């Protein structure tokens, strides 16, 4: 592990037995897990390179239990790490040696489905796909679809502001959640938003979404559900160069077309996927686009003709439109299996998640090629082309001395490149522990201080998920000071932009 976590408090470690007893008084029976062999399953999340056994695991079943656990931890100054299904790719649910791991998996009920107001009220442990499964009988679905959707929880989606292939047209989690119930570290239960569209006062719901478990514990979520599109068809477009594929993406959008999904894969990813699932991808192209159009049949038919014409004009050498639902699913099967497919051609891979302005794709791909040579590691690329979200997969072998370190350095350089061209460190996987120390690449000291002031408003003792997101933890008292000297606010020489 190359990331330093906050030094565990010896005082807390010494009190472990008493803490377990106190927690058992709040959550009875098997809801408190303290045996090493039973806690082992929780020592890591989707970022498996990082492991840490928690102090103790608590699995509450009621909001009241959550509130009492948090109130107790607040009073005793014990850190708390919230966890949903543990699928975070950035180490967001990595336990702390001196911290309670608060697992919300028993909050797994769908509380209400309200078709007339097109929303569902669910507990945070319900899976993303579970929501769609519950409403699809009536022709509805929940739009954000991270690739882990069969396992990831909606509470985790709120914490990470999860995306998926449909975000370009349908938005991220933040655009599809209209209300939450949350419990603060002090044990206060509050509601933000509801079934109405605008939340009152400050947009605390907007701040909570994507806050990576640092601001509060979500115990109920109200999501928008949408009527499923009447039809959906996909077209596979192959290009001799990634530049042409990139230009095709820009031209489609310039024409006013917002596809339901628009994904790009490079040659290495195409061939790995084709070997794995035989999706029918062309093997002799440098870039493959999957463009999915959804909506009323008349619209989809109309736009398919337009998209094919745009693709031809931009140099597409293959164009294949799905002729059946089976074929459309097959087109996607290759893309959705891209990660495990790459896993078959390399002992290990490291998945990155930068976002760039789309037009910078050729520059970033060229940069990645140079870095690949520098670090002597291969990289396969899958790309949410419509919104500029890159997922480079760095291929390495953890059993070879130094390769994991090289892979991480390679990844960091890719993210620096993303920031350099006007992009960001993470599009949908979150900062967590993984990108925490890269935050200064994107943000100045003052930028980060203002982010931490949000933290101070919610959790001034830094007890919720410490060690994630922020590279340096400033004490809230220190952040709160205002330096007024001789009638002037003292500020260092800040750059003026």
């Amino acid at each position, binding site marked *: 592990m190359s990331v330093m976590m906050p030094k565990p408090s010896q005082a807390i470690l010494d009190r472990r037995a008493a803490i377990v007893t106190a927690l058992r008084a709040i959550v009875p029976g098997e809801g408190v897990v303290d045996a090493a062999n039973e806690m082992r399953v929780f020592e890591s999340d989707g970022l498996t390179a990082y492991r840490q056994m928690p102090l103790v695991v608590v699995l509450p079943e009621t909001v009241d239990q959550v509130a009492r656990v948090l109130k107790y931890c607040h009073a005793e100054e014990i850190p708390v790490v919230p966890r949903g299904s543990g699928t975070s790719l950035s180490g967001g649910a990595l336990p702390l040696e001196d911290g309670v791991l608060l697992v919300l998996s028993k909050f797994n009920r769908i509380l209400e489905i309200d078709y007339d107001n097109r929303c569902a009220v669910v507990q945070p442990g319900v899976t993303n796909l579970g929501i769609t499964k519950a409403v699809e009988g009536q022709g509805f679905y929940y739009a954000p679809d991270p690739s882990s959707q069969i396992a990831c929880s909606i509470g985790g989606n709120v914490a990470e502001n999860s995306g998926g292939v449909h975000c370009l047209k349908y938005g991220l989690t933040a655009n599809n959640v209209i209300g939450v119930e949350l419990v603060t570290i002090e044990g206060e239960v509050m509601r933000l938003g509801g079934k109405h569209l605008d939340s009152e006062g400050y947009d605390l719901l907007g701040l909570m979404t994507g806050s990576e478990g640092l601001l509060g514990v979500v115990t109920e979520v109200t999501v928008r559900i949408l009527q499923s599109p009447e039809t959906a068809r996909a077209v596979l477009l192959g290009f001799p160069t990634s530049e042409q594929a990139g230009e095709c993406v820009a031209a489609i*959008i310039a024409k006013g077309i917002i596809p339901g999904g628009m994904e790009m894969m490079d040659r290495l990813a195409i061939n790995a996927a084709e070997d794995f699932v035989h999706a029918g991808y062309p093997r002799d192209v440098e870039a493959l686009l999957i463009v999915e159009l959804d909506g009323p049949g008349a619209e989809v*038919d109309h*736009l398919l003709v337009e998209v094919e014409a745009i693709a031809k004009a931009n140099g597409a050498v293959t164009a294949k439109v799905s002729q059946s639902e089976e074929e459309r699913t097959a087109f996607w099967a290759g893309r959705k299996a891209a990660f495990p497919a790459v896993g078959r051609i390399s002992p290990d891979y490291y998945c990155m998640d930068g976002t760039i302005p789309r037009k910078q794709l050729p520059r970033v791909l060229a940069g990645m090629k140079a870095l690949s040579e520098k670090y002597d590691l291969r990289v396969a690329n899958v790309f949410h082309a419509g919104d500029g979200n890159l997922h480079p997969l760095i291929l390495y072998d953890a059993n070879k001395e130094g390769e994991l370190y090289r892979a991480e350095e390679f990844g960091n350089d890719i993210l620096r490149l993303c920031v350099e061209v006007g992009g960001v460190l*993470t599009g949908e996987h979150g900062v967590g522990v993984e990108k925490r120390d890269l935050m200064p690449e994107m943000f100045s000291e*003052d930028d980060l201080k203002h*982010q931490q002031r949000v933290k101070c408003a919610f959790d001034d003792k830094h007890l919720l998920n410490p060690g994630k997101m922020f590279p340096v933890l400033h004490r809230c008292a220190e952040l709160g000071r205002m330096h007024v000297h001789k009638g002037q606010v003292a500020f260092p020489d800040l750059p*003026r932009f």
Partner: protein
Amino acid sequence: MSKTKSASQSDEQVLRPETPGDLRDIVAAAVSQEAPLVVEGSGSKRGLGRPVQAARTLSLAGMTGVTLYEPEELVLSARTGTPLAVIERLLDDNNQRLEFEPMDYGPLHGLEPGQGTLGGVIACNLAGPRRLKQGAARDHILGVHAVSGRAEMFKSGGRVVKNVTGYDLSKGLTGSYGTLAVLTDVTIKVLPKTETETTLVLRGLDDDAAAGAMAAAMGSSAEASGAAHLPAYVAGRVADGALGKDAATLIRLEGFGPSVKARAAYLGAALAKVAPLETLEAEASRAVWRDVRDVRPFVDGTTKPVWRLSVMPTRGHEIVMSLRMQTGIDAYYDWQGGLVWMRLEGEPDAALVRETIARFGGGHATLVRASDSVRTATEVFQPQPGPLAALSRRLKEQFDPMGVLNPGKMG
């Protein structure tokens, strides 16, 4: 930096910075002198929120200009004092638009339309009828640069759509009415204009039947981008009376020509069973929705109280019906009934309005038009429960510990 005296309010000093650095210095001076500021763009939304007690005004009117516009990347950045009209014209020239369809409070407050700034749109989290399908300003903000009440410059977000790097402060500042920080630059997502639109108009439905028809339309696969109901009195007061006087329930369909045609046929066939059906095409449709958006039916040259209710869509008309037992009301519904515009004949009884909302599924009410004295004496924004109010207060203290930015505007 220019300092001028406003003609209309001669005792008030207006500070008009031209750069973020100047703006920061003004906030720094306000902090050290403990002299709060009214923060505004063009001042077109002064009538919104509680009147701010401050001797000096920080005007963003001198901070203008589009700093980045890349239509093919669907992104635009501009200084916050840039007139919205300038942005909308630029987008229109490129066949694009602000998808959230920001409304214009000007006419309701007795001003000319089209006076607002981009910063004002973001600071007040404006939206229009399309909110129902495509969200509000907060759903389209990508990044901000700002100066907090600590006189420190900071940024958040970026210029790309998918970004989860750090807290979404851009959303946190959207809709904060300039009380946490002064926005200097914003980056927003823009989208292509739709090719055409058609509005289906159901005639003569009462509020209850209209609520059912709107729920059915929005629950269909017709992808409606607007659902509003104008009761009889209100219907005659949009688009210069083009709708006539009968109650009108409006369902808007936007998109590519063949798609709109197919959806209008499909949805129209279903709705025609409910009530007599008319259609409005293209410009006629746009004119009606513009007036629905800008609360034209209540633009009457008075300061009679107008409330904006954000509630559960299916309960909006029940709230109005319940309030009608107590007081004289004109009302109409947007967002499938989830947005209620309500004009009261008498003094606003804020407690009554809010108790009624609480009894019908929750939501909140904002007094968006009233005289200064009424807005000073009334809780303009919905009061929050204790713990939530305390959290909001802590956030304000973190960003503006001396309370120099728009003090009291939201409270």
